[in-house]
């Protein structure tokens, strides 16, 4: 009964988000029909939202447990930097480009997984608050990255590597295809498995979840590892899209990922939210950002508008929750 009720609740929120998205899309199309509603622009929006989308899904899963991951973009980039070093070495050794790329991708995702596990260890087993742990690891990852790169960007991939972030497959931007795959897998994992259920339960009440016989530490560890893997995937996309890796790429994504997750209906205290909600949240941010850029609106106003929409949606949600209780 409870779940049924919260399901309806969630669906209602999703309807609202979809309507906001469509309304914004139509509004932007009316405001600049010859520029916004073009295949070029739709395609570049798909390119742009993929990397943020993957990171935002990672952030949502962490927020579902009541945590947060401030080291998000720095994990991606440290992993990408190490992966770049490996690829550079293999390129200069004259190895097969496809093999090099494959090795690079594996290294990036593996390193990012380990970085996620480091976060997870301190949060789940040592019991430090997620915001503190990830604030710390953020500086550590950045520091290590800076030491390796001396502040500049590393590049030198096999040319084929560019396809991952910049290529088009069957008319669809390739990073978007990766994003769709991530959406499907994480939705199944979080919303259709017993493990996913325990993620929600931890966000609702850790003590009660532990008493019900679930190993919450193990689940939390898993959550941060999955977030790490998603950071790695985003790292691969970004390294390819910008054909280089540098510590501060995507540093503005951390707060955007939180915004997208919360806008998409994820409760910042944990326990509530859906992957698809976050996906729509990302899409809304993208339409606003691209639409207003095309109109030539000052970026400061874009931030104000995004902030205003976030506050409006949260306020409405707050009042509608009170009314229904």
């Amino acid at each position, binding site marked *: 009964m409870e779940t049924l009720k919260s399901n309806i609740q969630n669906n209602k929120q999703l309807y609202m988000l979809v309507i906001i998205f469509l*309304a*914004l899309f139509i509004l932007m199309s009316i405001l600049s029909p010859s520029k916004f509603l073009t295949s070029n622009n739709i395609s570049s929006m798909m390119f742009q939202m993929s990397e943020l989308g993957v990171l935002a899904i990672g952030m949502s899963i962490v927020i579902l447990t009541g945590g947060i991951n401030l080291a998000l973009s720095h994990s991606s980039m440290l992993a990408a930097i190490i992966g770049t070093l490996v690829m550079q070495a293999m390129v200069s050794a004259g190895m097969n480009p496809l093999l090099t790329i494959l090795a690079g991708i594996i290294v990036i995702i593996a390193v990012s997984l380990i970085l996620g596990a480091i976060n997870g260890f301190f949060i789940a087993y040592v019991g430090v608050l997620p915001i503190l742990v990830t604030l710390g690891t953020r500086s550590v990852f950045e520091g290590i990255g800076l030491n390796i790169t001396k502040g500049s960007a590393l*590049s030198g991939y096999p040319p084929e590597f560019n396809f991952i972030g910049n290529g088009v497959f069957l008319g669809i931007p390739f990073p978007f295809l990766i994003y769709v795959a991530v959406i499907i897998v994480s939705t199944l994992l979080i919303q259709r498995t017993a493990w996913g259920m325990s993620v929600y339960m931890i966000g609702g009440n850790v003590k009660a979840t532990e008493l019900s016989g679930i190993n919450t530490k193990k689940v939390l560890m898993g959550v941060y590892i999955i977030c790490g893997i998603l950071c790695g995937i985003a790292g691969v996309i970004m390294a390819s899209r910008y*054909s280089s890796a540098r510590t501060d790429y995507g540093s503005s994504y951390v707060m955007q990922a939180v915004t997208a997750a919360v806008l998409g209906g994820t409760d910042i205290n944990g326990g509530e939210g859906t992957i698809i909600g976050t996906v729509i949240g990302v899409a809304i941010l993208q339409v606003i950002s691209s639409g*207003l850029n095309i109109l*030539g609106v000052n970026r400061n106003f874009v931030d104000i508008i995004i902030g*205003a929409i976030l506050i409006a949606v949260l306020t409405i949600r707050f009042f509608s929750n009170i009314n229904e209780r």
Partner: protein
Amino acid sequence: MRRALMATLAVLLILSMLVACSQTSTSTPPTSEPEQKTPVEETKAPETSDNNGQTGEEGKVWKIAVMPKLIGIPYFNASEVGALKAGEDLGVDVQYVGPTNADATEQVKMIEDLINQGIDALCVAPNDPAALSPVLQKAKDAGIVVLDWDTPANPDDVVYSINQVDQEEFARLYYDKAVEIAGKDDFKYAILTGGLNAANLNNWIDLGLKYAKEKYPKLELVTERIPTDESQQLAYQKTLELLSAYPDLEVILGYSTPTPLGAAMAVREKNLNDKVVVIGSSTPKDSVQYLEDGSLDAGLLWDPSQLGYLTVFAAKEVLEGRELKDGQEVPNVGKVTVNGKVVVMGPPSIWTVDNAKDYDF
């Protein structure tokens, strides 16, 4: 369901209000003009026509986008003034747009959106040359003239690179000025920098260190360059720490505009105005109060509004099929030196207590 609809309407209302008010407040009047020409046709026109007229025969206005590393800091606000003034003077439509924080990935997205918007020229101060390279190639493929300014992009990506000063000359000036003011060439000194990621700052510091090694071998750098996150407050804290860690410190060199001001604040608080020399790249208006009591000894910079002006001027010249010449006199800017793709605005300016008040940035 009804509530959801109401909510959506409310959000849309707020949004449309914000869009409306932001459009009136951006200072680029021609954007609201109904121009529906395709950008490709626009860019092809200049090569054949050699009109030097302001707006061209058909009343066509060049659309030039100028993108700083970020918006909302005094330095880039000043260059905006110059860029927009050039737009008015030269009869071109200048759009000054940039991200709200210095992130290369944000710049890439904004440039993609500008390409879709349809512009004739893009002048960009890249937060990272490598990251912007693919998107700048994309812009070139779309027929857009690409220049860099303030910070160099990859040379292959641009027609011209507009530099504020000769990099080497500027790097040397720090040391020459420090030796001059300190009155000796065997002092202990420290370097504060805006950030370890900033390529231009690193370049100046590296060139300066190399120069010091040859010219002033007795100078002693007490510790590695210290990052201050482009924050005056952090520069202030770091300087306080430096002053207590190295009581015999005599010179502080500050790179990036907030840094020397923070250092001067700390020197003033410790009453070391006469003992410690602070030199750095600061904007004159903010420097005045520190120059007056001697906590800051000299500000080294250029006029960013002139840089903005020159950038737009250069973009228009390229769009109309002209080349920039070495020694060319640019209105409101002065003589520029041109060496291949590299355009240098002129010698750096030095702010002292006497002249700093005359500037409005």
